[in-house]
């Protein structure tokens, strides 16, 4: 694999070993991966395969113990200092004492945006996630799906080209999830962001991604990288096409090969 200068994320032999009281745990070993600008990359695998760990390394929330990684050509720490990415967590993690617009303003306040600029960006991102008119509400007044959309708006509010999403729809029911997946694709098309998306749903991964990274646990590693052949324009109905099912099948095979079910 050659290093690509246009890569947003570029990992070489990346590994992370946690030292626990039960001895070292290999959360991630030998990961080689390039994420190009504008890609939608999904990370899929069972619990303990290191998909979230990899995302957290990109975000400088964990430090790798082996190999190298570059984010926008910088170390993750430099990238974080440059506010290179927006992170969407498993839970919305909205601050309950702030209204939705104040929650979206949080990163803008921290990064020192002017008041009227903050206002314009809040309006714009609320519109992007279809929450216009909900700015004055408190998080508890919104449904789970709306809260998660608000947290996506918060990650989009500042000018990060990279969006890191850690199972953002994992806690939502399937109907809401389908709807949000569709919206997320539209948003991705409109904003031209690069998205790294962690999931353990095969249909979600295939539906959303231009590239699917299949991972397996003990030790956490990449077992397959699938370039999607689906077009960028994807109506929900695409999930019944043979092409879709074929990719889903390959993902499932990859998961099966990497995971011993005897354990």
């Amino acid at each position: 694999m050659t290093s690509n200068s246009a890569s947003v994320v570029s990992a070489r032999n990346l590994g992370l070993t946690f030292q626990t009281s039960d001895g070292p745990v290999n959360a991630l070993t030998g990961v080689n991966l390039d994420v190009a600008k504008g890609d939608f990359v999904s990370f899929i695998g069972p619990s303990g395969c290191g998909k979230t760990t990899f995302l957290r390394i990109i975000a400088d929330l964990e430090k790798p113990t082996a190999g190298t990684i570059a984010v926008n050509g910088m170390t993750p720490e430099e990238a974080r200092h440059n506010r290179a990415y927006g992170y969407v967590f498993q839970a919305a993690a909205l601050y309950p004492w702030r209204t939705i617009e104040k929650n979206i303003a949080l990163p803008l306040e921290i990064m020192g945006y002017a008041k009227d600029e903050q206002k314009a960006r809040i309006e714009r991102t609320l519109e992007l996630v279809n929450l216009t008119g909900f700015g004055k509400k408190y998080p508890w007044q919104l449904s789970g799906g709306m809260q998660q959309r608000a947290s996506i708006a918060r990650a989009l509010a500042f000018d990060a080209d990279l969006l890191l999403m850690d199972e953002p729809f994992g806690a939502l029911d399937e109907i809401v999830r389908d709807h949000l997946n569709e919206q997320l694709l539209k948003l991705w098309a409109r904003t031209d962001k690069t998205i790294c998306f962690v999931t353990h749903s095969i249909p979600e991964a295939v539906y959303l991604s231009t590239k699917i990274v299949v991972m397996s646990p003990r030790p956490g590693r990449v077992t397959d990288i699938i370039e999607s052949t689906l077009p960028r324009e994807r109506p929900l109905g695409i999930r019944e096409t043979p092409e879709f099912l074929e990719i889903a099948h390959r993902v499932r095979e990859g998961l099966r090969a990497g995971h011993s079910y005897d354990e």
Partner: protein
Amino acid sequence: MRQESLLRDKLLPISTVVAILIVVWYVAVIFLNAPFERDSAARAGTEIALSDLVKNTMAQERPVLPAPHQVIAEIWATTVNKAVTSKRSLVYHAWITLSATLLGFGIGAALGVLLAVGVVHNRAMDRSLMPWVIASQTIPILAIAPMIIVVLNAIGIAGLLPKALISTYLSFFPVVVGMVKGLRSPETIQLDLMHTYNASPAQTFWKLRWPSSMPYLFTSLKVAVAISLVGAIVGELPTGAVAGLGARLLAGSYYGQTVQIWAALFMAAALAAVLVMIVGFAHSAVLKRMGAKP
């Protein structure tokens, strides 16, 4: 949802308990004060009728247990019927104690918050300070109060401040414990979020830790303000203070003025209730401003 009714949900349960307490109290008054009446009747060589006995037990000058109406009459006489500047006014004494309470509470709350901020942000302080904070509360306040007053007197500090410092000594503790917990209450995910924004420690404090700690702060403040009052009263006891509810209690016990003691006790209880209520109102007001679910 059921409509909340003031009469049914607040007044009725409270007044029932009060009524039961008053009945129990009157019965206790009769039994506790009866021996004195029988003794004086025996000394006088007369028999005392039961109805007279009951009546007399509630009108003694220095009863073992004064009757509720005696205490109320004493409170009335020393509050409404006395100028507040009078040395015999309970309002005057309550104010002396209250001023020490509030000063001590203010210093204690501020000290508690500062210590908690230090403990949360500094590992060395976390390790070294907390055991001492806890140890400080194992010393009986009655033992340390005279020492504080004597030492401060020796370096020329007298009056309000020494008493207030005893309140501080008691009240900083719940604030430290509550605020350490409160400032550590943000979830990992909320702290991670701040990390991804590359927020400074000050930003993380003011935008996350401080707002998160508000429910803990007010819960601690309620405890702190009540024990501040206890501290101020205790501070008045060993020093022969001439004014304050503590002085009233002490003087009452010297001269066997049980009615005066009970009146002072009720004043102290009422004061504590009002202080806790004020903190409670502040709590609700702050939470409402922070958009809490009603």
